[in-house]
């Protein structure tokens, strides 16, 4: 791990390859470089400029989204796109072209970036934007850190009146219920996402809760306060707390908690967008073996049927899934050559790792995704096959032209090895 603290530091000459490392919030091996060197970018944590009248911000790549929010929310500006954690760097947000609950309206983080500086292994500094070196710009967005080191980026923030979100939670009883909401008038809401009860079967298959949020109006009253201290899971439980029976109860309770079909309320942005950031080391509840993530996207035309089949497989496997999230992505063309978000339905799951049976389930899900030309999200992957990567990312060959010869990752070597 080599720390980078100043923008003028060129990529160091080391034996072997290098890979930028943000805040390590990716789940798989896309932020690892076995046998090579990681460039730790958190020290690049300065702002270059912020104009509170226009919301245009320029900052170094190691700045955390949480640090941006601390600075800008008071001025009435919010992140234009945010994932489910604010503990990621701007570099990581660009390199995985992250998406949030407003993808259907705003696209991805990459869509918001107006320009960025890239330092190549050769020491060359390139200012990239949609008009300058547009090809390298598109390769770097979602480029998994393989096109060079992003030193800073500029993007436009979004106007808000206050830190609150008007939230509506709507219960739906089946997968069709979800699609009715997601493709109907609810689609117009700023932030939408659905939680799915992965253990429900039969006519309840795909039941869950649809969450829709809108930044609160200036006149909202009864404003809730920001949550105080973060909770933490202070120890590693000897067994997974998310094993069969606990999971069943949890999912049942979560679903039943919604007594009424529709619940509305005003929430501070933190619990709405970042429920897990409030719990330090929340992943410990999964026990010593940890857990695996899975996120896929499948084209809309077949989305309904494939999603149904995937949910059936999961329910049948009895593996459960603590957080299962379903969302319909918007139609905007991807910002980057390797961007994961694209028009279609995305399903995000996480499983306590139970050994071979978990992996077998993943293989079944992969086959379903592959069949309809879908893709897996690299930020959450540790095991997809080179063939699935190639079929899920059709612009791969175009991307290869922009690879920096000095940069590589464990993920990249794994998914590009001997693709016949």
């Amino acid at each position, binding site marked *: 791990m080599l720390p980078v603290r*100043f923008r*003028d530091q060129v990529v160091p000459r080391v034996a072997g390859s290098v890979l930028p490392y943000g805040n390590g919030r990716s789940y798989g091996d896309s932020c690892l470089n076995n046998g090579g060197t990681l460039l730790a970018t958190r*020290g690049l944590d300065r*702002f270059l400029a912020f104009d509170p009248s226009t919301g245009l911000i320029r900052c170094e790549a190691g700045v955390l989204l949480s640090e941006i929010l601390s*600075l800008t929310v008071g001025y009435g500006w919010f992140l234009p796109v945010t994932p489910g954690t604010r503990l990621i760097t701007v570099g990581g947000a660009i390199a995985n072209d992250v998406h949030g609950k407003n993808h259907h309206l705003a696209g991805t983080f990459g869509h918001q970036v107006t320009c960025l500086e890239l330092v190549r292994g050769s020491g060359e500094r390139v200012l990239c934007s949609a008009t300058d070196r547009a090809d390298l710009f598109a390769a770097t967005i979602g480029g998994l850190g393989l096109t060079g080191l992003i030193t800073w980026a500029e993007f436009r923030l979004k106007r808000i009146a206050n830190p609150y979100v008007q939230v509506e939670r709507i219960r739906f009883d089946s997968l069709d219920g979800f699609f009715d909401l997601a493709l109907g008038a609810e689609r117009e809401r700023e932030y939408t996402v659905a939680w799915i009860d992965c253990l429900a079967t039969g006519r309840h298959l795909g039941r869950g809760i649809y969450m829709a949020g809108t930044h609160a109006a200036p006149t909202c009253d009864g404003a809730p306060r920001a949550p105080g201290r973060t909770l933490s899971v202070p120890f590693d439980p000897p067994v997974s707390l998310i094993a069969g029976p606990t999971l069943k109860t949890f999912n049942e309770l979560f679903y039943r908690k919604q007594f009424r079909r529709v619940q509305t309320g005003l929430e501070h942005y933190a619990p709405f967008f970042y429920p897990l950031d409030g719990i330090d080391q929340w992943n410990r509840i999964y026990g010593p073996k940890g857990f695996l993530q899975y996120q896929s996207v499948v084209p809309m035309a077949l989305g309904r049927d494939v999603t149904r089949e995937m949910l059936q497989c999961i329910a049948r496997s009895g593996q459960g899934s603590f957080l299962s999230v379903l969302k319909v992505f918007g139609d905007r063309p991807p910002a980057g050559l390797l961007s994961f978000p694209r028009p279609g339905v995305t399903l995000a799951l996480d499983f306590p790792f139970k050994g071979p049976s978990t992996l077998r389930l993943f293989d079944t899900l992969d086959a379903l995704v592959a069949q309809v030309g879908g893709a897996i999200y690299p930020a959450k992957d540790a095991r997809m096959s080179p063939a699935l990567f190639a079929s899920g990312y059709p612009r791969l060959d175009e991307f290869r032209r922009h690879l920096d010869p000095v940069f590589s990752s464990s993920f990249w070597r794994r998914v590009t090895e001997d693709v016949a």
Partner: protein
Amino acid sequence: MSARVLIVGATSAIAEAVARRYAAEGAALFLAARRTDRAAAIADDLRVRGAAVVTVGAYDATVPDTADALVAAAWETLGGIDVALIAHGSLPDQPACAASAALTRQALEINVLSVIDLLTLLANRMASVGHGTLAVIGSVAGDRGRQSNYVYGAAKGCLAIFMQGLAHRLVPAGVRVLTIKPGFVDTPMTAAFPKGPLWASPQTVARDIQRAIERGAQVLYTPWFWRWIMLVIRLIPTSIFQRTRL
């Protein structure tokens, strides 16, 4: 009125963390640094974080007779100085110093003589207006000479004694003098060392420094437990101490 703060060695990780705290309070800052391009990047950041004004000046501790010009420029630009933090320093290669009188002298120039130049000039300015705080980053390494790091330790120890005397002298003038003694801090200076539970972040140390300045403390061990660790280290009898590899 917001504080007027001079920081020498402003590109240091610890100094930058302190500067951010003052910036957030709307301070006016003068950043003196060897690498002015890096200091300029820090200055932009401090402006975004709320600093009223930030000025960058060049300063290299190895260039003789630079202290005068720097102190005058900072004093003029800020219209007087409320807090001066002197942070620059470099960790010499002890075995190389042991083999070379020239290298030893160079290490002492950077780590103590250049600092004393600045202190003398700043102390007189502050005394003339009867106000201000002089804060210097020393080190726990200055509390006892050790075979592994005694040139650096000598510089920091010399600073501590100088500061002690200066504090004494400046009591009637109403000028405060603070010697900061950090333990292990995770910064570029210590990048090569393996890290463990005793290590602190520059942010933690910066918080302690700002508090100590506000309190008017004269000596700060940061984090706090180093006061006790160093007490024990100082108390170990020489005959035993010299059998260790410390």
